[in-house]
């Protein structure tokens, strides 16, 4: 392990990446009659932005030294995801079992307790919004529960001594912001291209031990799901393979709207 030294002090980051395992939402089909999502036999995968988070953590270690620890709050099926994280360069992994579905308050409590247990001065890296539920709550919640600054929506991370510098992308502007560690950094898809690990690393990852723990019960409110169905589409679906007829129909339909 290579460490970053500055003025005689060893400044190696304690990098923690938070990874979510989700069902492969692209493979979900809905029952055409009831509109219910058919979830049986759909494989699990690492959530896309979690891969960006792993890559960002490993790149930070490669440049500035330190150690990358991965935490997955998931189920006993999360081993495959952790092995993938190991193959990408994660040094140590914890799977906390007991994920019971989308509940950011519960997830943030469980993750923040584990992060505290792992020690101080950590740089916590996670995706800004996961592809299945899209809540976007975790970065803010964790920064609040851990009482450390949030460098959110990062498209780049640079370390300078103990300082982390991030390019944050907003609708109206791009900002360069910074904070010393410890801090929370949420990343976007644009930050990097997650690496495809070589076969040897994948094999080595398979032999690496994974720490398994059980989540404590947290007393948090759980919303009642009234329904979760495919949106009804009431489109006309007049499809023309004859271009001229199609153009005529479209022109007629939209002419009144474009004036």
């Amino acid at each position, binding site marked *: 392990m290579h460490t970053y030294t500055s003025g005689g002090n060893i400044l190696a980051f304690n990098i923690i990446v938070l990874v979510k395992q989700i*069902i492969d*939402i692209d493979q*979900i089909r809905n029952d055409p009659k009831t509109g219910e999502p058919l979830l049986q036999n759909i494989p699990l995968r690492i959530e896309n932005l979690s891969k960006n988070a792993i890559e960002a953590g490993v790149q930070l270690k490669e440049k500035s030294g330190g150690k990358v620890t991965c935490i997955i709050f998931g189920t006993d099926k999360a081993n495959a995801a952790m092995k993938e994280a190991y193959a990408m360069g994660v040094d140590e992994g914890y799977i906390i079992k007991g994920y019971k579905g989308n509940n*950011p*308050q519960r997830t*943030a409590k469980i993750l923040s307790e584990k992060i505290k247990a792992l020690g101080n001065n950590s740089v916590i890296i996670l995706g*800004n*919004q996961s*592809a*299945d539920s*899209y*809540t*976007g*709550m975790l*970065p*803010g*919640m964790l*920064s*609040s529960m851990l009482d*450390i*600054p*949030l460098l*959110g929506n990062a498209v780049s991370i640079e370390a300078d001594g103990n300082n982390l*510098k991030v390019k944050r992308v*907003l*609708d*109206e*502007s*791009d900002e*360069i*912001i*910074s*904070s010393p560690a410890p801090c929370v950094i*949420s990343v976007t898809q644009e930050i990097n291209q997650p690496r495809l690990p070589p076969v040897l690393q994948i094999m080595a990852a398979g032999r690496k031990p994974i720490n398994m723990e059980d989540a404590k019960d947290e007393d948090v*409110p759980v*919303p009642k*799901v*009234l*329904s*979760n*169905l*495919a*949106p009804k589409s009431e*489109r*006309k*679906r*007049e*499809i*023309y*393979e004859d*271009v001229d007829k*199609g*153009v005529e*129909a*479209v*022109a007629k*339909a*939209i002419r009144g*709207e*474009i004036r």
Partner: protein
Amino acid sequence: MKFLIFAEDSKNAGGIASKLRDSGDVHAIIMKDQVEASSSYGIKKIYGLTGKPFADNVAESITKLNPSSFDLLVISSTTLGREVAGIISAKQNLLCATEVFDFTLQNGKIVTKRFFYGGKTIMEEESEAKIITVTPGSFDPQNGEKTSEFEDIQLPQSKVNLIETKPKEKSSTNIEGANIIVSVGRGIGKKESIDKIMPLVEATHGELAGSRPVCLDYKWLSEERQVGLSGKKVKPKVYIALGISGQIQHIAGMRGSKIVVAVNKDKDAPIFQESDYGIVGDIFMVVPKLVEALKK
């Protein structure tokens, strides 16, 4: 009832206020430069934030107004808004319903609707959430009668240091407010082909938009023109999808359109299932014909 809104801009503050004001008093916290534009939406009290907003100092300012004394805190779900919602929800231990595009208040509870599984389903939930984040553009701003009181709030110091701000080039793009949208996907093949689409944009007096690959991956169009779950949610009178396959994430961004027209050379493209009118054919052959037909 009493509501508190946090939105960065006047349109979303106004949209949420229009949805809420018949049920009670609406207070809103917005950026100072948006205060004037927000004064016509029947908001009882408008707080204008001055200074540089970060997630922590905005959350602190909202917390000082005691959000739990309101029946509901509604936050416009921008990058900053989501961060602020997370901080307040954690700090005040208040349940937050997220990325809501519609909601109703009933008997002290709230029923919220959001997309789930990446847009494959709509999840309807009932909870006692005291905070909700609302997808921008979900509600139309309509003028209200109540006159507003004003107060400025100076944002406190953030724990985050700002080194540099680069404003993005101001463009006149506002696809969220457009009546007609001509939207292009990967099927146009290359950036230069956009020129061939422009006559249709002009003939329809529309705005040009694009799918995620076009705006983010290939950067043929700027990010602010991206329609989809991770981009802008639009609801024009006419949405014309050219060479867009119709991934569910895209559909989630344009589902509110009144009339959807799709042109795609693949007759099995999922976009046709979400269209009122579809033409199976080459975009570059269809577009000039359509321009011609619209001139008649």
